[in-house]
């Protein structure tokens, strides 16, 4: 154990220094100080100067530069400067990071991190046959997502031949990864659950690939699950039937999604082959995650989990600051931790999400920080003792991280849950339970009533549809402002149906929009029951989601079958590119990623009506296990409140946290008994 703690960090250091430090000292081409006059020098000596050689020469330079990863460079240029350009006052220094080279180096880094998890006393022995499935499944991606890899890897070749060394190399390397995972898991299996928080530090997305290391690990567990539990459950059968629907219903198109901040956990193409690949990967990962948590939950250790949360969360904060100050730190954060997108370049929240890089969005990192704070509060409140006293000071960077994430929803929901947990534990609640519950309901109703009095009901009930109308491509022949005026006029008149009488408008309206307008303007009215569209509109105003949900309504144009079964897991291509909308944003933002900003809507795109089944099951789990002593009840409610208004379910680490919390709700009922 001690040896591995010395050997692995040393090996990690070598893995980071060697690829970016090796250079030929016989070629007499040396790094020079970066300036306007030396740009040409760097452009004519490509693939000769290593990154560390360059950095040591420019360590004290006052020039503002940014290290850019060049995944398309040849493997021979790995770790070397492949060009320098000047953009405004900043120098863009490109470093060769060939995608296949990244695959090897980043895998070795993360597998080494994995090996730092302490071994158990109990060692399992899994069948070696399991290993073969990993390369066989994952090699398929290089064939199905050719458009993605063609543009990110110089040596990419998807031809099925015995002389295709690229594919053969990948096949061998996946086998290597599976071998290491198997060996690592055999001795760490029970301890993995306690190290879940580290997925927020080590994002695990391979640079230049649409793949995440956790998918490989979870798929390994998915395969393991099948080798142990060979029973087919209703879920498996339902997923199989839905898969047939997702594959047959798919309308192939040339849409291409580069993954953006979802890279590694999204389908980049809208083809049958890639659909099949991601259906299998999603299924095995989900099964693997559930299997891993269920089978190792008895070894869950609250204190260890809290300690790891504190370490992971504070490292995100600390390394995020380092990355914002030092260009090399920014690059190494991206590379070592496998971030989806580069971290913030400067330390101000207006320069982007404060913890961008470590987290794809401010919401997801805010939720994680909120989760840690809430977990520690609930622990202290329940056990009347401070957990991991030596590490509790790390709560300071966590609170700071939450503050800097600007996630108001997370901060307010932490406060709300703290208040609720104190309330349900109080003597007053025990005695006047009914009165307090009725009082709370009345309070919420009064709040709603007060909110409706600030603005007119007409405004509140139609604002969401109004936003959707503005983003719908109505009156496309008019210039933007005049079509806006026409739409506004109809909206003032509350005349949505006339808008849709125009044939062109009707064609340009999304099916969701047509459906909601129909629902909003329907003639029958049930007394005292608010119209569902009006109600959602009001909610969207309260939680500041009117514009984003309006864009969603304008964009989401599913067919009838997609309304029922969705587009399939991790398939966003049709939603993102199929339906033309009008965006009133600056030109450079037109190509930005417009996600629905609600995990419920994300799930709806993936699973259609079956989302209600998933949500219903989640709510059922909360009700079934509702017990004021169960910490996970409060954590689940906290996550539900947050993901309703964020896209966190689209990110792998947030999804893992949500599934872990809900399974904990069911399985970790009384942590008192757990040592």
């Amino acid at each position: 154990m001690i040896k591995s703690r010395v050997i692995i960090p040393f090996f990690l250091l070598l893995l980071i220094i060697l690829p970016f430090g090796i250079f030929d000292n016989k070629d007499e081409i040396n790094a020079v100080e970066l300036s306007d006059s030396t740009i040409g020098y760097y452009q004519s000596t490509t693939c000769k100067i290593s990154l560390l050689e360059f950095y040591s020469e420019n360590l004290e330079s006052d020039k503002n530069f940014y290290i850019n990863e060049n995944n398309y460079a040849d493997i021979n240029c790995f770790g070397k400067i492949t060009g320098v350009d000047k953009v405004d006052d900043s120098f863009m220094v490109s470093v060769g990071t060939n995608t296949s080279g990244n695959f090897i180096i980043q895998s070795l880094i993360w597998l080494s991190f994995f090996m730092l998890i302490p071994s158990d006393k109990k060692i399992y022995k899994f069948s070696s046959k399991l290993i073969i499935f990993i390369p066989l499944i994952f090699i398929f991606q290089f064939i199905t997502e050719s458009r993605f890899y063609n543009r990110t890897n110089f040596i990419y070749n998807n031809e099925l031949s015995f002389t295709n060394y690229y594919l053969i190399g990948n096949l061998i390397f996946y086998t290597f990864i599976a071998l290491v995972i198997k060996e690592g898991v055999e001795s760490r299996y029970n301890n993995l659950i306690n190290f879940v928080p580290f997925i927020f530090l080590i994002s695990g997305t391979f640079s230049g690939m649409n793949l995440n290391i956790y998918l490989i690990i979870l798929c390994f567990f998915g395969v393991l699950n099948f080798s142990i539990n060979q029973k087919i459950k209703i879920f498996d059968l339902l997923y199989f039937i839905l898969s047939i629907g997702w594959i047959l219903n798919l309308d192939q198109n040339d849409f291409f999604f580069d993954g953006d901040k979802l890279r590694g956990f999204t389908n980049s193409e809208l083809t049958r082959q890639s659909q099949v690949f991601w259906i299998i990967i999603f299924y095995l990962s989900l099964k693997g995650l559930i299997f891993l948590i269920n089978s190792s939950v008895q070894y869950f250790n609250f204190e260890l989990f809290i300690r790891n949360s504190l370490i992971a969360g504070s490292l995100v904060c600390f390394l995020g600051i380092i990355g914002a100050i030092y260009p090399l730190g920014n690059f190494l954060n991206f590379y070592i931790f496998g971030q989806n997108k580069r971290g913030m370049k400067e330390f101000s929240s207006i320069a982007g999400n404060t913890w961008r890089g470590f987290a794809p969005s401010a919401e997801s990192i805010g939720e994680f920080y909120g989760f840690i704070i809430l977990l520690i509060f609930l622990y202290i409140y329940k056990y009347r003792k401070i957990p991991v006293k030596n590490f509790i000071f790390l709560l300071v960077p966590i609170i700071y991280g939450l503050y800097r994430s600007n996630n108001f929803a997370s901060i307010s929901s932490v406060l709300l849950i703290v208040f609720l947990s104190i309330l349900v534990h109080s003597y007053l609640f025990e005695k006047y339970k009914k009165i307090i519950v009725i009082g709370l309901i009345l309070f919420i109703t009064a709040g709603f009533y007060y909110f409706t009095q600030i603005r007119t009901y007409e405004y509140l009930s139609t604002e969401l549809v109004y936003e959707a109308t503005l983003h719908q491509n109505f009156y496309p022949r008019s210039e933007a402002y005049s079509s806006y005026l026409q739409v506004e006029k109809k909206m003032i008149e509350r005349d949505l149906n006339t808008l849709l009488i125009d044939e062109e408008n009707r064609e340009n309206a999304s099916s969701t929009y047509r459906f909601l307008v129909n629902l909003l303007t329907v003639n029958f009215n049930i007394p005292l029951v608010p119209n569902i569209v009006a109600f959602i509109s009001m909610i969207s105003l309260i939680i500041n989601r009117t514009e984003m949900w309006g864009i969603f309504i304008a964009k989401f144009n599913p067919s009838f079958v997609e309304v029922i079964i969705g587009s399939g897991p991790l398939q966003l291509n049709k939603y993102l590119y199929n339906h033309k909308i009008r965006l009133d944003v600056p030109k450079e933002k037109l190509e930005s990623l417009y996600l629905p900003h609600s995990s419920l809507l994300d799930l709806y795109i993936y699973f259609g009506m079956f989302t209600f089944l998933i949500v219903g099951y989640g709510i059922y789990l909360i009700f079934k296990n509702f017990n004021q002593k169960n910490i996970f009840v409060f954590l689940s409610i906290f996550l539900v409140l947050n993901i309703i208004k964020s896209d966190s379910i689209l990110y792998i680490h947030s999804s893992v946290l949500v599934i872990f919390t809900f399974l904990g709700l069911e399985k970790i009922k009384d942590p008192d008994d757990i040592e």
Partner: protein
Amino acid sequence: MENNLVEIERVCGLKPPDQEFVEIASDPNFVFVNDLNFSTIRLYDIDGNVINVNSWIECAHYVNGGWSQNNFQTPGDIIFLATTIVLTFGYFILSKYKNRIFK
């Protein structure tokens, strides 16, 4: 270009009698015209970049700029394959002798 004629002719073949040496580097809009009588030659630069040239003057221009018919570098896919084989082989050796090494 004239000073490097021996090397150019070694790679590109004999200079056609009617071919004149033109200063291409100073003209960014210069377009090489394909010569149907010229067999395409593949050239490599020091970084392993590849170009197919379709006329003698195009070939001469690149050879003069340091390109040659020798691919100095091992192709990336071979390096990748070799690394994966070495790693996997190394893993098996390490697993087998792990106890002895870390004794």
